[in-house]
């Protein structure tokens, strides 16, 4: 280790200034004190990516972000676009690029979490946390004026088929409806809700934020079969390695980043870590749930999208909802809302082969070509992540997934037909690499089945806390970003009460 220096001690080191880290940092800094003496907390938050500073100015944006976020297309959005799953490695994390659909956790989500691993996360206990996120992200309904023609037609058609489409709630602040946010682009106008407001509040309350440092490992001292967290080792951009010491460490690196960091720290399955194992827990990196999905696109004789900009996330419905809430498929007209990128329209299966016919198709395709999307929201299939290599293993081709996706593809084709599509993609859509990973360090009451307890404390390593998408015991009907946000708001309250309140 070169140039090693030691800083601290801190009361708390937060690793990761993304969704969870930022929300919890603000809560603890604003309301917490050291339990032993009532003094203000000394908190440091570390982030691997850059910090594009500037107080939020929704509707306009600020130079630091506006200049970098170009709103061009996904591959020209800037240097902070990583391949999935690390789409936005920067202060603000996933909230910088998420699709801003604001599905709040459903009653069934809480039931699933509690049934899956014994957490006590009931809907009633989350009430304040949910309201906090609704207020912070300004979650609501996009006015009907901003619906696309395809959105209107989808709703009417699905209703005529006997379903109950509901509007996809979204978070927006002074949005000008440019229509470029739905494909993972950063928002140059600060209209897409993010956690930078929390970051600003955390800093105002004294949190030290250090961007562009990579945490190499959490320092864990072994205590018999268990361990105790002492701090972290980090590497700065210039290669300097530093050690920070703290009473507690909170890891919030996301559903993929967190198990990998724990693996580098010697905490995880012995089968993978071998003689580098400090503390064994087979659940680190396991119980991965994602939401496999597929699209069916169609070409229309008329415009289904707006000529310029777009408004919303459209509607969704569940074609059937089993009593146990498992294997539920959500179908939505999201890709009827946003203009279709030319390069996407050009290569869809319904485009003419080539030549003049293809060129003529392209002249209006961005408005006339749209898709319907389905996802298995509560899949029955689990995978894992290798905490050494970072490779994920997920059985997309499990018959339970495939059967469900074929079934939903037929429904989507039927909707397109009834909507009056001219040409509909007929191939069996392959499942795409579903997103919204959860469960890789899941919370639970049984140490044999989980990594942290319902209070976000590691079962095995004292003074180690974890909160991000990895702790969510089951994939959610409410997708991912809002559940992570509400669970983080909830975690902030619990950690505050458990550790940073006097007396």
């Amino acid at each position, binding site marked *: 280790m070169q140039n090693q220096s030691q800083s601290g001690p801190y009361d708390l080191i937060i690793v990761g200034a993304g969704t969870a880290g930022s929300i919890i940092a603000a809560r603890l800094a604003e309301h917490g004190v050291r339990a032993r003496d009532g003094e203000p907390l000394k908190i440091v938050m570390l982030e691997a990516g850059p910090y594009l500073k500037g107080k939020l100015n929704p509707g306009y944006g600020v130079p630091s972000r506006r*200049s970098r976020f*170009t709103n061009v297309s996904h591959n020209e959005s800037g240097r902070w676009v990583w391949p999935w799953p690390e789409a936005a490695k920067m202060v603000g994390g996933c909230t910088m690029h998420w699709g801003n659909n604001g599905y709040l956790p459903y009653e069934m989500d809480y039931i699933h979490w509690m049934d899956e691993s014994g957490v006590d996360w009931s809907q009633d206990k989350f009430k304040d946390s949910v309201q906090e996120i609704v207020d912070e992200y300004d979650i609501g309904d*996009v006015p009907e004026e901003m619906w696309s023609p395809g959105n209107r037609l989808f709703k009417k058609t699905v209703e005529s088929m006997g379903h109950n489409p509901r509007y996809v709630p979204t978070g*927006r602040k002074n949005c000008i409806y*440019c229509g470029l946010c739905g494909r993972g682009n950063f928002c140059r106008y600060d209209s897409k809700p993010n956690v930078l407001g929390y970051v600003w509040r955390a800093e105002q309350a004294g949190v030290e934020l250090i961007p562009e440092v990579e945490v190499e490992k959490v320092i864990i001292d072994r205590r018999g079969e268990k361990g105790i967290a002492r701090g972290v080792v980090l590497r700065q951009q210039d290669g300097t390695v530093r050690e920070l010491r703290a009473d507690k460490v909170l890891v919030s690196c996301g559903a993929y980043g967190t198990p990998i960091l724990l693996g580098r720290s010697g905490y995880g399955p012995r089968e993978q870590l071998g003689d580098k194992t400090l503390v064994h827990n087979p659940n680190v990196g396991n119980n991965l749930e994602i939401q496999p999905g597929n699209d069916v696109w169609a070409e229309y004789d008329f415009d289904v999208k707006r000529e*310029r*900009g777009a408004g919303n996330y459209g509607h969704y419905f569940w074609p059937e909802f089993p009593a146990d809430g498992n294997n539920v498929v959500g179908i939505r007209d999201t890709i009827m809302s946003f203009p279709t990128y030319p390069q996407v329209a050009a290569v869809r299966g319904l485009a003419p082969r080539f030549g003049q016919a293809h060129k003529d198709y392209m002249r209006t*395709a961005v408005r006339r070509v749209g898709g319907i999307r389905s996802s298995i929201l509560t899949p029955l299939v689990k995978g894992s992540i290798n905490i050494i290599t970072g490779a994920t293993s997920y059985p997309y081709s499990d018959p339970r997934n495939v059967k469900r996706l074929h079934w939903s593809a037929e429904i989507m084709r039927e909707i397109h037909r009834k909507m009056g599509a001219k040409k509909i993609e007929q191939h069996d859509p392959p499942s795409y690499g579903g997103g919204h990973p959860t469960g890789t360090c899941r919370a639970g009451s049984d140490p044999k089945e989980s990594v942290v307890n319902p209070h976000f404390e590691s079962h095995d390593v004292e003074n180690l806390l974890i909160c991000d998408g990895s702790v969510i015991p089951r994939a959610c009907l409410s997708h991912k970003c809002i559940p992570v946000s509400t669970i983080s708001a909830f975690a902030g309250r619990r950690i505050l009460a458990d550790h940073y309140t006097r007396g």
Partner: protein
Amino acid sequence: MPKKEKVSRRKFIKHGSVSTVAVAISQVTPSLGQTTGTLPSNYDRALIFAKLGDTLIPSSPGDPGYKTLEPYNITAEIMKGVASISDQDMALFNSESADHFGGKTFVELSEAQRAEYLNMIVDEVNISDSRVLGRLKSVYSLVRLRVFIVFYQNYPQHTIMRDAEGVPILPPDDEHQITNPNQPGLVTGWDIAGWRGPMTWEEEEERREMSKKLKWKQY
């Protein structure tokens, strides 16, 4: 003449054999993703890509297409993304047309004949050797995908100049930091598709006014 020496270069390429003839006559240096083997002396990889691009997105007076962007090196850009297609497969693609178009290779065909040849491959007609057909279809699919993506991502105005920190370099008088790479004067994929890219400041202001009139209903 021994039987194996009767194998024409085209037949050789067609059957992808590398075991015998290649050893005797090949001077080809294999590259990543390529199999070793001989190539016709007139083999011109770039020309085949250029003709394919022109067939996929035709140009005509008043209606620019792929060929219009040749002065901007679009073929070189296309070739950066298709290194996985071997020279043998490209040569086969070029030579196989000779069996169906009076001995003419793909690059020698007229525009209409090139289109007919591509349709023949996609429709799987008149090409009985399934292995050959598979290789031809693979070339067609990969090149088609690459050409359409590059062209309709607005090549050559598809990127924004950035400094070492990743910050777009804008004209000094652009105080609103409008970063639309698409410029007037050259017809690109975005222009054909009617894709206007990021908004101008004036459009933003109009939309802010519109946005103020909308009623937002928070949950």
